[in-house]
């Protein structure tokens, strides 16, 4: 147990060192990701007509201020749940045989990828926290105050679980490459579905009856649920139920990953030398 903790710690440390090698590229990529946040706030401003003589009041239960806070909080959720390069990286490694090292060394590939991703995120937060705080500070007037401690704790928990759900979905897509070798189209479809069904584009309660169906899928935990929790849209009882279902999704996705890995390895042909 202690040895395994130590291995994971060294993996995390080595991954952190690796992430910090190309610092200019990393800092630039991180900062550029903030541009869409600014443009999106302006877009919602135009939709609500806030600079016109007849601004919209509420749209589907969201005022302009609610929408901006929802969007900012959804972006925080995405900062935890998005996994750029994970699925395509697994597919590339399967295609060119780079995963051989995970199969011949006494190491769990999925565990390694998990800690690699934790390192990726930690470095991202290190660089992105400043700009995030600045954006939140500039938009502070749109927030209606701090929720209670239990809600804040549930929000933090939902962000951590959003990371797990995002990781497990993308790694599962990556593992499909054991059968198909190329998953870029599958990944593209997932990105589109994810953008819509996670609540990244618009809140899920804007989708009407279709939104009721979306509630049964795991995508909402990637952006909508953390944002809605922090906006106080769930009662304490609903919070408990929502997070319990999310927990079940994590277990289901974890088991699916393990099964896909074990079966995938049996399919693996170790191409490329």
């Amino acid at each position, binding site marked *: 147990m202690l*040895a395994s903790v*130590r*291995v994971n710690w*060294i*993996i995390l440390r*080595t991954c952190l*060192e*690796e992430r910090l*090698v*190309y610092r200019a590229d990393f800092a630039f990529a991180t900062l550029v990701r903030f541009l869409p946040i600014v443009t999106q706030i302006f877009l919602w401003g135009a939709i609500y007509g806030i600079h016109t003589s007849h601004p919209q009041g509420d749209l589907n239960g969201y005022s302009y201020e609610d929408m901006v806070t929802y969007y900012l909080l959804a972006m925080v959720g995405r900062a935890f749940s998005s996994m750029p390069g994970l699925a395509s990286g697994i597919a590339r490694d399967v295609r060119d*045989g*780079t995963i*051989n*090292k995970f*199969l*011949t*060394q*006494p*190491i769990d590939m999925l565990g390694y990828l998990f800690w690699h991703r934790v390192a990726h995120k930690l470095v991202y937060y290190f660089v992105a926290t400043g700009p995030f705080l600045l954006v939140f500070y500039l938009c502070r007037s749109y927030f209606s105050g701090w929720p209670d401690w239990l809600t804040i704790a549930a929000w933090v928990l939902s962000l951590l679980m959003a990371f797990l759900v995002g990781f497990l979905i993308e790694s599962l897509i990556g593992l499909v490459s054991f059968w198909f070798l190329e998953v870029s189209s599958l990944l593209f479809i997932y990105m589109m579905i994810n953008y819509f069904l996670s609540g990244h584009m618009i809140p899920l309660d804007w989708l009407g009856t279709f939104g009721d169906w979306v509630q049964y899928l795991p995508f909402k935990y990637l952006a909508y649920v953390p944002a809605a929790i922090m906006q106080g849209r769930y009662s304490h009882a609903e919070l408990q139920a929502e997070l319990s279902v999310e927990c079940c999704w994590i277990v289901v996705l974890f088991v699916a990953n393990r099964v896909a890995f074990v079966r995938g*390895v*049996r399919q*693996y*042909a*170790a191409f*490329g*030398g």
Partner: protein
Amino acid sequence: MVFNRDKPYDTGMAAIRVRDLTKVYQVYRKREGLLASLAGLLHREYKDVRAVDGVGFEIETGEMVAFLGPNGAGKTTTLKLLAGLIHPTSGEAQVLGHVPWKRENAYRRRFSLVMGQKNQLWWDLPAQESFRLHKEIYRIEAGAFDRRRDELTSLLEVAHLVGQPVRELSLGERMRMELIAALLHSPDVLLLDEPTIGLDVVSQRRVQEFLKFYQAERKITVVLTSHYMKDVEALCRRAIIINEGVIKHDGPLADIVDRFSRHKIVELQFTGSEIPPDLDRYGTVTETRPPRVKLNVSRHQIPEILSSLLSRYSIEDVSVQDRPLEDVIAEMFINQQQRTKK
């Protein structure tokens, strides 16, 4: 420098046992052209390719065996099966008492696979970071790790490079680092797939010398595939020749020339600068550098040919040699390919 033995070895038993091992790949057969590509979206034809076909052999603990064969013969597939990277279609294999494709950690801690065309080190970090990670992954005790790392880096003359990012190392330096990473946990079985591919002559020789020394010191079991016969001749006494997934020879390397070559090379040095024009009646002239000439002659005719040559011409020096192993094996593969085509 002498290695400390950290682990006892099993002695007097086969380290690797393989019986009737078969691996069949299903390969997509795409016909030429755009229409065929479109048709392939709806229906695909697959062909069974028997990469390894009923292979069987045993390798004793401490043996160093060469696996030889042309490209696509099944050498790397066999190594991948022994490393547990792929599952066989049928057959059995045991390495150090483990079934490789079960990929138990207890097995994975006792072998290493080095593929000359694959990089296992972290590309952007110095090799010492990869070594440190290996220390944890393989649970190497701190003292043993320091000792082995220092010994290996010193033997392979890369101690001054361990702090340099791997991407900045030359191919030869990188391969030596790969070998160090593979040996840090002191494996009992080492599977080497083309470890000197693409290396310059100096790096090749350094890797060869190191492997020879290390294997002699540690008595580890080594399976080596290489297209460089100089590697094979320098390192192995036994060779397994595989072609089209089937073992064609398993025995001493020295037997290969006797078994598969019906010719020897007779090198003659004539007294004058002239070379007689009718030498081709004795055999094939393979090299002419007056006053020296090389003849490829049938091995059972050598006594009479030599006697005839010496009586007819004024010859200053004569030698009879076996044909280079490389030529014998190449000829053997070409003959087999021609037979298969027929």
